[in-house]
């Protein structure tokens, strides 16, 4: 485990744990075998020593929540932001007296966005750290690596963000917080294609470009299905390797195919490269964008600035008249304050609200069943709808959101490189889904974008 570098956070900022009331102690202790055994051992020891009352010893033991989270590597920026949100929840619940009256302690490791480290991390969490609950990190590849281990331990896994990880396993205690929906493969690009079909006249051709990685591959498969569904002919379909740095030849080939719509599934550095190249080449197409990871990050939004104009990309949250979920403004205000010190994403629109919402779901389930039994938690989460900072959340049988809610947003009127403009309503206009849409799609891409 020496390669599990940088961080193992055994929290030092746990609020003073409160003693359990006799009622909550009884309810909490009776529900799992582990807790029962622990209580039994504690009782025996204390009975032998004739010292403290049993219930205070149990109450002082924190609930450990373990996870791997990218703090470095390609998705480290997201992982850092998600971690801050989870820490905010921990501080919040500890200030409210803890979960089941016990303090919450986070135990996490930097997975370096590297799925090969995941088996070691989760084995250590279960066997050495003896965590009570686990979360999934950020990214399809890392969650795909974590899920079989968590299944083996029959624990609940609440993932921060992944696409179609549980498609084959169909594990009943897996939940995924990003709003891709239960048909994540197709729903990730569905809004983009729906928006494309609102153009007049309707487009007939599409180019699909994407990185050859787990996430992009899934999204591209879905995009092909959507292209077929909406009757679009794919005139260019190309993948590129993860370390691609030159996109000129790709976009020239795309331009040569003369598509009316260009769909891109890319990772952060590629997203910046593709957009800069499209801008330099004055790409002529009617609609351009897709599932481009990175455009949601403050740093890239700020640096790309006006080059983003008229790009249609997915976001999970943007300030809009239609996304005023209860608690979201307060959450973001607090997050943005803490993010400055933590060195995390300054806006926090992308992952943090969903990471926090995941913890709210877990909290409500544990509180409702009054214990940590994974089967009971799983059943409760499946059976209920949760009010969270990202709105109401209901889960499908495969653990994804029952109803997808990926926001396809067109960047409009971006001037200069001031980050504050992205906090304003109107610079990231929601085009799809219609339930949240409030603006008009501008097209063609090139004429108005340049």
């Amino acid at each position: 485990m020496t390669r599990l570098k940088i961080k193992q956070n055994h929290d030092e900022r746990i609020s003073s744990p409160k003693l359990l009331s006799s009622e909550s102690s009884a309810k909490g202790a009776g529900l799992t075998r582990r807790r029962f055994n622990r209580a039994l051992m504690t009782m025996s020891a204390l009975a032998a020593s004739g010292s403290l009352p049993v219930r205070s010893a149990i109450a002082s033991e924190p609930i450990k929540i373990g996870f791997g989270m990218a703090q470095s590597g390609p998705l480290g920026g997201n992982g850092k932001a998600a971690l801050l949100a989870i820490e905010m929840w921990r501080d919040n619940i500890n200030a409210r007296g803890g979960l089941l009256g016990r303090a919450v302690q986070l135990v996490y490791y930097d997975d370096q966005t590297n799925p090969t480290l995941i088996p070691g991390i989760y084995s250590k969490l279960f066997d050495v750290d003896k965590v009570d609950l686990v979360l999934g990190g950020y990214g399809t590849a890392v969650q795909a690596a974590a899920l079989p281990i968590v299944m083996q331990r029959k624990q609940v896994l609440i993932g921060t963000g992944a696409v179609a990880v549980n498609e084959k396993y169909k594990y009943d205690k897996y939940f995924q917080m990003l709003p891709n929906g239960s048909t994540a493969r197709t729903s990730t690009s569905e809004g983009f294609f729906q928006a494309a079909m609102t153009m007049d006249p309707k487009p007939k051709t599409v180019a699909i470009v994407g990185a050859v990685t787990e996430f992009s591959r899934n999204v591209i498969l879905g995009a092909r299905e959507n292209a077929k569904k909406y009757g679009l002919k794919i005139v260019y379909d190309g993948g590129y390797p993860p370390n691609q740095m030159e996109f000129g030849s790709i976009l020239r080939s795309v331009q040569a195919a003369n598509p009316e719509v260009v769909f891109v599934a890319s990772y952060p550095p590629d997203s910046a490269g593709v957009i800069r190249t499209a801008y330099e080449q004055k790409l002529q197409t009617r609609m351009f964008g897709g599932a481009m990871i990175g455009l949601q990050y403050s740093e890239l939004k700020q640096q790309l600035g006006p080059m983003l104009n008229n790009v249609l990309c997915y976001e999970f949250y943007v300030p809009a008249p239609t996304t005023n979920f209860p608690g979201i403004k307060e959450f973001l205000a607090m997050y943005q304050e803490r993010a400055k010190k933590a060195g995390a994403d300054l806006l926090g629109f992308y992952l943090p609200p969903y990471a926090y919402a995941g913890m709210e779901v877990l909290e409500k389930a544990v509180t409702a069943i009054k214990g940590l039994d994974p089967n009971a938690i799983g059943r409760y989460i499946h059976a209920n709808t949760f009010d969270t900072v990202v709105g109401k959340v209901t889960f499908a049988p495969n653990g994804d959101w029952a109803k997808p809610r990926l926001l396809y947003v067109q960047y409009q009127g971006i001037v200069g490189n001031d980050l504050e403009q992205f906090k304003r309503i109107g610079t990231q206009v929601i085009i799809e889904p219609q339930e949240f849409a409030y603006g008009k799609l501008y097209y063609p891409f090139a004429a108005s974008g340049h």
Partner: protein
Amino acid sequence: MVTFNLLINAVVTGILLGGFYAAVTIGVTIAFGMLDIVNIAHPVFIIMGSFVAYIVNRHFGFDPILTVIVAAPLFFLLGIAIFRFYYAAFESSGKGSLRGLAFFFGIMFVIEVTLLLAFGVDYRLVQTSYIGPNIGFAHIDLPLRMVVPFVGSMALVSGLYIFFGHTFIGRAIMAVAQDEFALSLMAVDTVAVKQLAFGVAIATAGIAGGFLIVIQPVDPSLGREYIGRVFAICVLGGLGSITGTVIAALILGVVETITSTIFGPSWAPAVSFAALLLTLAIRPSGIMGR
């Protein structure tokens, strides 16, 4: 369908890309090819250069390439300091090769984690007047974002070519590369010469970092992506040959972009490295190797 226009653009883009590859590889050519030091940490010095360019550009608005040129002496001094430690700890006791490799791995991780702690994991970009404009003519696209680093790279390798071929110190470095023992018999302080050469290698990495951040966003762990590529170009060019490095870099760049245009970008790495293997099978010492 691949048209002539697409092909000619692919060749031009490949040349621009290859020029940049030459700049990132030239330091490895000096350290590995001439001094026999497996500096696996070379790409992370490139990333350091990128971050120097980023900080100065972000806070003072200075040009990233001019910034790294001004900062090159600092990288040179850093290279000298690292070599002195490396020499004292490993090379002087004859344990340079394998333990030295572990040493440079260590250097790589230390610098990477330091950058992570200092700057976080976000991707960093710079703002300059030549990011965005295109000076295309006759259906050929020439994005300034690629042209400026290419011109800078060619100036860098040309300068090094003149330095190694026409200056006393440069010839001394070439002499060390050819036969260190013979040079030492002539009372030359070969360690001092190697130290200078290693300083020059690290200085080129710093400058290449300025080119890199103009071309693409940079994060602290990006250097790992370049390890395979820079050593492949160095070997393909012929160890220690500056001309060979430039030719190999241009070949790799052009093969990548042509493959990307004709067969699709996902084939580019496979075809590039197949070309490398084929060249080495025909000419094991590399294109300009002796």
